[in-house]
C-alpha cells in the first residue's frame, strides 16, 4: 500500500486498514466453516478407519497409539465420545468393565477398614448388593475375570500416552487396575488392591487368622513354632499396613489381632 503524505494520507491508511480488517474477518469465518466441515468429514473417515482396522487397534499397541494420536488431533476421545460406537469397538463399557469399575470402588471404600486386602467372596457379595437392580448374579468367577480385565486394560491404557485425552476414570483404573492381585491363603482367595506384598511369614499368619478372624500371639507361636519376637514383628508390620487391628477388650485380657480382610463380619455395601 502506497504511503501518501499528509492528512489525506492518514485517512486512506485508516480506511484501508478497516477494509482489510473486514476482509480478514470474512476470511476467518469462511476458514472456520471450512475447517468444521473438514473435521466432520475427517471424523466420519476416522470411524470408518476404526471399523476396518478394529482388530489391529485392539491387538497392536503401536498401531493403537498412532490411531489414538490421530484421534486426538481431530479432538476425538475414543473413550468418551459417542459411547455406543467406540465402546463397542474397543470392548469397553461392557459387562466386565462395569464390574471392574465397581470392584475398584468397593476396594477403595473398604480400604480404610481392611487395609486393601479383601476376601473374594466378601467382594463378590458386596458387588451383588451394589448391583441389586440388575438381575444378573455375579459369581466369584465373574469377579476374577473382571479383575483380570482390569489388569490387562491397565496395561493397555499405558499406550495412550497422551494423558489429556484419557478420561479421569480411565487414568484412575490405569493406576489402580494394574495394582490388583488375587492370591490364595489357606482356604480363601484374597484380592489385594494395594502395592503391599505379603511375605511368607505374613501369609502364614493370615492363614491362621482365617479360622476365627483373629489370632493371639500364643496361637501363632504354637502353630508355627516361632519365637515370639518373630510373631510380633510380622504382626506389627501388618498393623502398619492397615491390615490388622488390635483388640484388648476380651475378658481374658489377652490381646487379639484381627484381620478385617478375612473377617466374618457382615459389611454393608451401602454403608461404605
Amino acid at each position, binding site marked *: 500500500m502506497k504511503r501518501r503524505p499528509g492528512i489525506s494520507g492518514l485517512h486512506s491508511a485508516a480506511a484501508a486498514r478497516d477494509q482489510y480488517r473486514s476482509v480478514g474477518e470474512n476470511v476467518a469465518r469462511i476458514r472456520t466453516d471450512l475447517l468444521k466441515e473438514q473435521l466432520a468429514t475427517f471424523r466420519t473417515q476416522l470411524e470408518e478407519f476404526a471399523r476396518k482396522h478394529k482388530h489391529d487397534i485392539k491387538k497392536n499397541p503401536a498401531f493403537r497409539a498412532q490411531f489414538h494420536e490421530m484421534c486426538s488431533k481431530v479432538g476425538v476421545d475414543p473413550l468418551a465420545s459417542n459411547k455406543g460406537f467406540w465402546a463397542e469397538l474397543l470392548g469397553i463399557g461392557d459387562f466386565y468393565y462395569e464390574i471392574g469399575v465397581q470392584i475398584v470402588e468397593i476396594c477403595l471404600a473398604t480400604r480404610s477398614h481392611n487395609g486393601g486386602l479383601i476376601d473374594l467372596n466378601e467382594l463378590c457379595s458386596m458387588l451383588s448388593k451394589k448391583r441389586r437392580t440388575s438381575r444378573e448374579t455375579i459369581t466369584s468367577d465373574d469377579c476374577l475375570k473382571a479383575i483380570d480385565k482390569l489388569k490387562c486394560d491397565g496395561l493397555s491404557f499405558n499406550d495412550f500416552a497422551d494423558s489429556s485425552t484419557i478420561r479421569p476414570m480411565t487414568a484412575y483404573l490405569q493406576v489402580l487396575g494394574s495394582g490388583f492381585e488375587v492370591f490364595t491363603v489357606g482356604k480363601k482367595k484374597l484380592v489385594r488392591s494395594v502395592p503391599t506384598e505379603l511375605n511368607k511369614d505374613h501369609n502364614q499368619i493370615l492363614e491362621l487368622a482365617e479360622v476365627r478372624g483373629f489370632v493371639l500371639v500364643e496361637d501363632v507361636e504354637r502353630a508355627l513354632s516361632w519365637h515370639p519376637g518373630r510373631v510380633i514383628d510380622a504382626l506389627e508390620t501388618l498393623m502398619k499396613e492397615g491390615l490388622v*487391628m488390635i483388640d484388648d477388650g476380651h475378658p481374658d485380657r489377652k490381646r487379639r489381632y484381627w484381620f478385617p480382610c478375612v473377617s466374618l463380619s457382615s459389611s454393608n455395601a451401602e454403608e461404605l
Partner: protein
Amino acid sequence: MGDFKFPYFFDYPPYFTLQPVQDTREKQMQLWKELILRYCQHHKCFIINLEQEFPLFQNLSIQRKLSFEAREMFLAALVAEGKAEWLDKAHKKCLVLWRSIQEWSEMILQLVRDNAMEDGVLTLDEIQSGDESRGTELAGIDRFVLVRALKLLEQRGKAAMFKGKAGDDEGVKFSAS
C-alpha cells in the same frame, strides 16, 4: 422415631480398642464421632457424663466397651470440631451439639413464625414441651441449650428473655417480625 440402626463397625471388637497406628486410629475416631452425633440426635441426648455409663459406649453382644481414655478422646475430638463443648473444667461432662446453637436459634424463629407469634410471648417450658413444639425437633430440647439459643436471638434483637414473677417460669418476648 424408629429403632436406632448401629453401623457395621459397632459389632467388630477392635473398634472398641484405641488403635495405635495413626491412619487406623483416625478412621476409628471418624467413625465414632459420627456415631456419637447420630446416636445423640436420635435419642435427643444432650449431655454425656464420662463418669457415668452411657449405653452407646459398650456392645454387650460382643462383650466390649470403650475405655475411659477412648471415650474422652472421641469427645475431645468432637469438641475440637465445635460439635461439642465441655461443661466443666475437669472435662467430665460434655454437651453434644448435634445441632449448633445457631441452628437451634433458627428453629426457634421458625417455631415463632409457624405459630404467628412474631410479637408474642412464650415461657421456656412451653418451648421445651408445649403444644407449639410438639412434633418438632425442638420438643425436649435441653434447657441450657435453649437459653443459649435464645441469648443468640437476643443479640440479634429478635427476642428478649425475662424472669417471671416468683414461682413462674422464665419467658421470652419475641420481636421477630
